[in-house]
């Protein structure tokens, strides 16, 4: 089982960062607002495990607090996508071919034309920059993703005979969607959720990097990279540390998603590798 290998490794990596984020609420090695100019731009040392930045702030502490921002933004954005997208997808599938289905799908296509960066630009134009922008921008973009995945999966289920049986038993479209369709889509949605979560972390980093996401003093991985840019030639660890954090988190989530798919999707189970 190569699948369970990737699943365990991926889950372990993800848990590591989630744990770092949680621990940061009660304890960090150094206060992230603590400016310590004499110790600025240090390479990793016994005292500062990952080194310090141009203000002498401890990078490990900033990564831990930054994990909070990244995970919170991505998680809420995925939540928005699921809470709105999944019911829309179920509804569209239950009313396949109706004007409602058509409307939902057209609206989805339209949102797809607005990459989350563009949405973030628009929101920033109105309200100014902030972490909430990133949540809304990434969340909106997640809605059509989940709506499509749900509708696609639901449509193939609606063709199955056990759904016909449920209809013969007089169950309404809503009841069938909740009782028969949704539980059978759970695996699909968990896998998609993991993928969207990792995309969310990447998107949040990008938005913060260009200044449309989290604002100071809230530490964020993307902004750490933006700060590092001018100093990267003589202090490469400033870019390597937050970059590594992003890569490892996203890698962990993606590996977890792949492992989950291999584990949960009965269609792939037993297929020779």
């Amino acid at each position: 089982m190569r699948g369970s290998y990737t699943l365990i490794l991926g889950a372990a990596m993800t848990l590591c960062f989630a744990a770092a984020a949680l621990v940061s609420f009660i304890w960090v090695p150094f206060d992230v607002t603590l400016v310590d100019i004499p110790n600025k731009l240090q390479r990793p040392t016994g005292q500062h495990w990952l080194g310090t930045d141009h203000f002498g702030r401890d990078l490990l502490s900033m990564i831990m607090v930054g994990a909070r921002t990244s995970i919170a933004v991505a998680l809420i954005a995925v939540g928005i996508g699921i809470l709105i997208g999944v019911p829309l997808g179920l509804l569209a599938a239950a009313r396949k071919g109706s004007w409602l289905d058509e409307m939902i799908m057209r609206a989805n296509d339209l949102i797809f034309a607005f990459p989350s960066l563009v949405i973030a630009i628009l929101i920033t134009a109105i309200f100014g920059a902030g972490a909430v922008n990133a949540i809304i921008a990434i969340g909106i973009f997640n809605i059509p993703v989940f709506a499509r995945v749900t509708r696609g999966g639901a449509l193939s289920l609606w063709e199955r005979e056990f759904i016909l049986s449920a209809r013969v038993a007089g169950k309404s479209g809503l009841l069938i969607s909740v009782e028969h369709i949704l539980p059978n889509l759970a695996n699909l949605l968990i896998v998609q959720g993991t993928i969207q979560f990792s995309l969310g972390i990447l998107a949040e980093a990008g938005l913060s990097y260009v200044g449309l996401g989290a604002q100071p003093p809230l530490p964020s991985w993307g902004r750490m990279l933006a700060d590092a840019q001018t100093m990267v030639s003589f202090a490469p660890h400033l870019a390597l540390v937050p970059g590594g954090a992003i890569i490892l988190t996203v890698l962990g989530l993606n590996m977890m998603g792949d492992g989950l798919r291999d584990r949960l999707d009965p269609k792939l189970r037993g297929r020779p590798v």
Partner: protein
Amino acid sequence: MSDDSALDVMGLSLSLGRLEILDAVSLSLRAGEIVAITGESGSGKSMTALAIMGLLPAGMRPSGQIQLDGRDMLSLSEREMCRLRGNDIGMIFQEPMTALNPLKTIGDQVLETILIHTESSKAAARLRAAEVLMRVGLPPEKYSLSRYPHQLSGGQRQRVVIAMAIVLRPKFLIADEPTTALDVTTQAQILALLKDLVRQEGMGMLIITHDLAVVGNLADHILIMRRGKVLERGPTKQLFAAMSHPYTRMLFEASSHQVSLPPPPPEAAPLLQVCDVTRAYQLPRKGIFSVAQSFRAVDNVSFTLRAGERLGLVGESGCGKSTLTRAILGLEPVQAGTITLNGAPVWAGARPNRVVRRNIQVVFQDPYGSFNPRHKVARLITEPYHLLDAPLSEQDREAAVSEALVAVGLSPDDGGKYPHEFSGGQRQRLAIARALILRPELIVFDEAVSALDVSVRAQILDLIVDLSTRFALSYLFISHDLSVVRSITDRVMVMQAGAIVEHGPTDQVLVQPRHPYTQSLLAAAPRLPPLPKRVAQ
């Protein structure tokens, strides 16, 4: 082509891990001869065919010998096997709808076989392709080489697949369930074509099929397989006469299984009345300005099913029987006409009528798709309780589940299991239990035994008769297979192109059909030779 070409399989074995898929299978095939392998699912008959072609799934290595004119094919390199496939041995598959590349024209696909094996020019190859398509019954003036597969019907696509397989006049042809996915009339045509090709071109054909009736009329030699082993073999006539292996006899009996239905109650009141029902679908418009056409799937159909009656509905795919079934079940509204049960309409206004629904239940075809894999049996078979006005007490529910499970020959403990723990036949029993649990007045069997192996099918047919005796069931039995309908119904209706073209007592319709369509259906249906006297006792 030499007439003494020979394909000999000797001691062919194949295993996957601990599972023995083939166990010392031997057969021999000569030019101009038809050999059939038959057996139920899991017998290894298709694997034998794939092993001969060298097209087994990756990682499977057979042992034994497969000799083509004395040359061992198993020791050939992949490159040599490629030269042999399509050139010396052609193959035809079961599912014509997916066997052709949807993005290439039929001409190009037939052409390809020629171009990869010969030095022939494209023009010459094109001529030969046209000639072969003509030979398989697709004259190029009607079916241009530039057509795409989706523009052809299933039977026509199977003809293209055959053309691809025989275009280089191979010595041998392997046909893996070549007609299973086709309607009876198309099946008869394709079988006639194959037989004709073998006789005229002097090819040897190995045909794999689960259908003994097909084999009986076609093959010179028969092999009966079960679980990877050849149980019995011999010339067709002798084998049918002798049937030395009990499994062969069981298969044979199950294939022509006749149940004894108790006589229906005389002159009972009408139960289901279908009156002038029409259901039409809009077709996509051909041009931007042309008027939208509609297709009448069910066209002005009327019939009555009396209480206690067992009515059959027979027709080929696309005849409208599924649409009619859905209308009767109240799953789709109709455009015109009425459907009533005991005088109450199936549709009350814009909503289905709950009281009527409670009294009509259904058993579908696919034993694997009929149950939500995440629910336990007790929950699954009590799903129709949703139609009750007041929920049952927990005790009554449990009692009903036990009773229904016992009635269909399962154990009351099975209520706590998941559907994947059951075999196909057992699941069909569960589906019947679900249909029975409300004690409906009418059960619709929608191709309920079509997906089952013959031995399982016989058991389920017996169960249906047994239940109909015990519970005085009325049912509508829908099938594409005339032989199944024969003994399980009192009366039968034949449907074609949305209309019922003939109806009457089953014995009468199936013995002395009046309508030409019924006649052609009966003529096309492959028939088993009469059961030997010794066996029938």
